[in-house]
């Protein structure tokens, strides 16, 4: 009998051997996710439904801290320590390739086929796959959009801007007509953090360039990138945006627009739910448009974000964990999440035209079109290194302490040094 115990111990301790064998008997899965804010949390109901469909499986929900940096730190420490304290995890789309490369995620390819992912937005699928394998199931969708004051633009007979240059002239017209010195032009996120990189990327794409080229080169067209940054700095210098956007994050920029103090704001879909609250001063006056492009560049595209579900590679219950991920990413679960009225948007495209959902949230078809045209941030394991390296450089351009050329040269120099030893 002794050798049986020994073999069992080896099987359990050896990662990679144990993971595919779900023993008989009750299984408890631990699901690590951020708490859903909103009128009601639909997650517990979904988990109970999953348990009902999978007898013998219990799911324990463990909350994650709310800020993205802390979540990342938690995962890094716990996954690198290789402790199987949780089985299923919710993670920011930009971490998927990093975690996959680190060997922390279970390769879902044997279960989740490309066909199964087809109903999700292409940008979400692109962020869930890396190196030809599937590492996550898209769960909720985020996309950068331009909100505008439909009432103010209509007064001037203006249609929402297609280019940033058009946006600038529209701002000048509206402000001249309104004559309100407290009415700002366009608000966006210029604080030195991840949000700044998202905003700059959208300007890069609108100018027909990117941070990482098709051939994996950093800043393939420096001239276009520099022109985009010059334009962003110009927004601040010319007073189209107030000077404090250089310290603005999502909430700091959403509030003034929500108080009726700006013509445009670049934000995410969650903001619309707040603009349409019964006591909101801008209720019924907000329009949604695609991110503008640049004259001589390309069409604008919003950046995507959101969360995916993945499985810890060290899980002892791979089958059950994968089942949970597929269930939560599936149509009924995403429908329930969307119907609960929380400010989360599904990754499954069909739900955006579902009659029941559209009746409660008429803006859904509009967001569908914007998310379909949107682009993911660079899908690479070193995304965070890339982002934190360029953040201070972009910030330096916005506050005018470096020229775009200097900042881009220094960013490229640093990135080449850091990535040089890694590739």
């Amino acid at each position, binding site marked *: 009998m002794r050798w049986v115990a020994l073999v069992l111990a080896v099987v359990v301790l050896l990662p990679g051997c144990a993971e595919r064998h779900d023993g008989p008997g009750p299984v408890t899965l631990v699901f690590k996710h951020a708490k859903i804010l909103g009128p009601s949390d639909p997650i517990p109901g979904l988990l109970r439904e999953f348990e009902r469909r999978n007898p013998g499986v219990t799911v324990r929900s463990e909350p994650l801290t709310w800020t993205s*940096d802390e979540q*990342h*730190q938690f995962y*890094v420490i716990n996954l*690198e320590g290789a402790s199987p304290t949780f089985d299923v995890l919710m993670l920011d789309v930009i971490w998927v390739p*990093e*975690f996959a*490369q*680190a060997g922390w995620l279970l390769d879902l390819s044997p279960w989740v086929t490309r066909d199964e992912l087809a109903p999700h937005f292409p940008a979400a699928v692109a962020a869930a796959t890396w190196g030809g394998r599937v590492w996550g199931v898209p769960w909720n969708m985020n996309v950068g959009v331009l909100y505008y004051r439909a009432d103010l633009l209509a007064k001037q007979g203006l249609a929402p801007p297609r280019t940033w240059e058009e946006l600038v002239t529209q701002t000048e017209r509206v402000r001249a007509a309104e004559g309100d010195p407290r009415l700002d032009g366009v608000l966006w996120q*210029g*604080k*030195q*953090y991840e949000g700044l990189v998202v905003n700059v990327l959208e300007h890069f794409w609108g100018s027909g360039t990117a941070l990482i080229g098709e051939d994996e080169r950093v800043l393939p067209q420096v001239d276009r990138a520099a022109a985009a940054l010059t334009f962003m700095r110009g927004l601040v210098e010319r007073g189209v945006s*107030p*000077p*404090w*956007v*250089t*310290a*603005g994050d999502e909430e*700091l920029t959403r509030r*003034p627009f929500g108080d009726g*103090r700006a013509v445009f704001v670049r934000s995410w879909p969650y903001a619309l739910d707040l603009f349409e609250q019964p006591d909101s001063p801008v209720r019924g006056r907000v329009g949604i448009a695609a991110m503008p492009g640049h004259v001589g560049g390309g069409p604008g595209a919003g950046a995507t974000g959101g969360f995916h579900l993945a499985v810890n590679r060290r899980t002892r219950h791979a089958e059950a964990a994968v089942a949970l991920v597929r269930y939560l990413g599936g149509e009924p679960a995403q429908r329930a999440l969307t119907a609960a009225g929380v400010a989360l948007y599904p990754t499954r495209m069909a739900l955006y035209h579902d009659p029941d959902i559209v009746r409660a949230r008429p803006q859904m078809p509009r967001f569908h079109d914007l998310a379909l045209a949107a682009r993911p941030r660079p899908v690479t*394991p*070193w995304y*965070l*290194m890339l982002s*934190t*390296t360029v*953040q*201070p450089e972009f*910030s*330096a351009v*916005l*506050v005018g*302490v*470096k020229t775009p050329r200097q900042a881009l040269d*220094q960013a490229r120099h*640093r990135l080449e*040094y*850091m990535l040089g*030893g*890694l590739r």
Partner: protein
Amino acid sequence: MTARQRADRLAGLAFVAPAALTLAALALYPALWVLWLSLQQRVPIFGIARFVGLDHFAFLATDPRFWNAARVTLVFTGVSVVLELVLGMAAALALQRQRVGRRLALSLLLLAWALPSVVTARLFEWLYHPSAGLVNIVLGRPLNWLGDPTLALAGLILADVWRTMPFVALLCYARLLTIAPEVYEAARVDGAGRLATLTFVTLPLLRSILLVALLFRTLDALRAFDLMYVLTGGGPANTTETLTVYAYRSLFQTLQLGFGSAIGVVIFVLVMAVAAVYLRALRREGAAA
């Protein structure tokens, strides 16, 4: 050495051993581990782990971001500690004279200090809000506190002074309470005015407690992290990025364990050097008293 002396010595060692072992396990071992890490290129997610010797330190020596962070750290420490000491001492002296509501004043002071620093940071985020913030409403000017490269560091220093000045004030106040009234009576009899009493009686008596406060505050300020992390993220343009924020970003955001540890080692050396200078001053103070 007699047998007795030897036994005494052994007993002494035995008594010191638990403390020494605990210290070694909790402080020395991690410190040595960080030192060892700093000599390696280690990026676990890319499976990179190789010995690079002093390469990271050589890179840091020519790294403008590092020198900028070092400068920000020193400016932040110097200015905030001086302001905290001066204002804290002034607050303590004012408290001593205060007749009514002294308890209330003390509890208000304590409140600022007792708030977790992340809460303080959030509080200041709204105080500094460009249009709706109390600071700008009081000043009557739309200052861009956290988004202007020339103002952001000053904004952080003000927040830090607001938060930790009470600590210095309480230390000084406690010392003031222990000064015997006879000392002041004697000064009055000798014909000392208010200014003379302050400079020749009160301040010299506060000296050693001020040195202790200086030591604590300097070491804390050198390691400042949460205020800048929450309020500015080190921006704009890295004008508020301290060494600890740089180390954090390298370690936990980009997972460069070796490179991040190298920055950690520099912070450690800096803090140790400052502590050594202060401790020497304190020892001299002890010998003089």
